[in-house]
């Protein structure tokens, strides 16, 4: 039975499914590298973004200007070039190559990708969080003041928890963009999901198999992430939805109009 299937696929399938199946463990390993890189960058970038967003939402020009410059630089330029700058560029300086960090960290592709990705997502997350901090409703802050909350207490108990929740839908986009962006790692020799696809195509001189397998696996990961975020939003943003929205049927608006 199994042999019959293999024979059938080898004869009739336009792409070499058997070869993909044989190398599938490598693809899973690549997916693991992609996920590890993405999640670690998001965690590091997210931790950096919280104080930076508080600074950006505040009105201290001395602190605000450098943070603004940082987010402007990283949001206005391609991640590919940022990664090249760190991985290929830093070696230009003798003093960088003489530091203790050079051998274990700054000359390693993996750490360079991690640094570039973390800074990139930190910049985007900072602006995203700033947006949701400044749109906290005035009433909530007044109420906290009336209860005698100090500045830090207000931030910790009122502003940030509510800002995090409201930033969730936009943050889910950032997570998917970061996953997409992580393919840049494959251009600096890292065997991530796309790296494995490129390796397979290079090794067996193929045009489709590696890329298609990588594409399908990326698609599955993205769909799982957005599904997860939707469940998360349902839980954390439940208080913001209209009360009867669950029961009421969505009205057909322009959807039925044909252009």
């Amino acid at each position, binding site marked *: 039975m199994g042999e019959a299937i293999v024979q059938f696929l080898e004869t009739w399938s336009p792409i070499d499914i058997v070869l993909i199946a044989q190398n599938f463990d490598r693809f899973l390993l690549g997916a693991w590298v992609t996920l590890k890189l993405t999640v670690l960058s998001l965690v590091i970038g997210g931790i950096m973004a919280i104080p930076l967003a508080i600074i950006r939402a505040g009105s201290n020009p001395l602190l605000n200007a450098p943070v603004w410059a940082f987010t*402007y*630089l990283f949001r*206005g*330029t*391609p*991640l*590919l*070039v*940022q990664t*090249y*700058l760190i991985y*290929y*560029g*830093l*070696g*230009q*300086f003798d003093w960088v190559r003489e530091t203790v960090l050079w051998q274990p960290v700054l000359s390693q592709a993996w750490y360079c990708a991690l640094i570039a990705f973390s800074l990139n997502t930190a910049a985007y997350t900072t602006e995203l969080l700033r947006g949701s901090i400044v749109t906290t409703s005035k009433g909530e802050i007044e109420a906290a003041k009336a209860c005698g909350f100090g500045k830090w207490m207000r931030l910790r108990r009122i502003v940030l928890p509510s800002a995090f929740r409201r930033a969730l839908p936009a943050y889910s986009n950032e997570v998917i963009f970061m*996953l*997409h*962006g*992580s*393919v*840049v790692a*494959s*251009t600096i020799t890292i065997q991530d999901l*796309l790296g494995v*696809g*490129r390796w397979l*195509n290079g090794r067996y001189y193929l*045009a*489709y198999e590696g*890329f*298609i397998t*990588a*594409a399908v696996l*990326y*698609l599955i990961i*993205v*769909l799982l992430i957005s599904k997860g975020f939707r469940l998360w939003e349902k839980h954390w943003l439940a208080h913001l939805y209209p009360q009867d929205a669950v029961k009421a049927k969505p009205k057909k*608006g*322009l*959807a*039925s*109009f*044909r*252009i």
Partner: protein
Amino acid sequence: MRIAASADMDLIIEYQGQLMAGTWVTIRLALLSLLLAVMFGLLGAWAKLSKNIVAQKTAAGYTTVVRGVPDLVLILLVFFGGQELANQIGALTGLWDYAEISQFAAGVGTIGVVFGGYMTETFRGAILAIPRGQIEAGIACGMTRLTIFRRIIWPQMVRYALPGFSNNWLVQIKSTALVSVIGLQDVVYNGFVAGRSTRQLFTFMFAVLMIYLVLTAVSDAGLRWLDKKYSKGIVRSEDG
């Protein structure tokens, strides 16, 4: 420090021809793929809002795939796979011996189609934001569908779509950098080659970074101007 900076500047001036040529390729690539993206976006929004179930499903599948798969994967697939496919079709039909897809064409096609998916969602949302009564009023006045689109939907759609459009465009300019991976001699590729031959990769990559920053800043200013133009006569809320 000052001496180093001026030496770097001299190097960049020495290689400015290559950098400018690359920048020009990047700009052409970005603008052509934007044109394609807008076309695909309008087509996709039309399909998503139509009553035709086949068109709806096709558009839904299209936006899911292009927004789910990273652009570099699709660029590689189109460049290498597309070439192979064209040759296989040629061999099968006997119409051509050897077909070649240029890096530029693969880049424009892929980035255009991918961002067409993002534009589809932007345009769809913008059309849905137009109050239905206005379209009914148009029908009542005896306007044809085309007139309704030209006079009622388009001017308002542009206004509602501009924020999303601006966002997509800024992401799209940056995505063009990925086409350098398949060997297109854009600003990243040329900057990299110049940096490697002079062993000053940081200098050149930083110059490339600055060029992208200028491109995004100029686009940002242009889009703000457009936004002002299309929002004439609209009262904005105080904090908007």
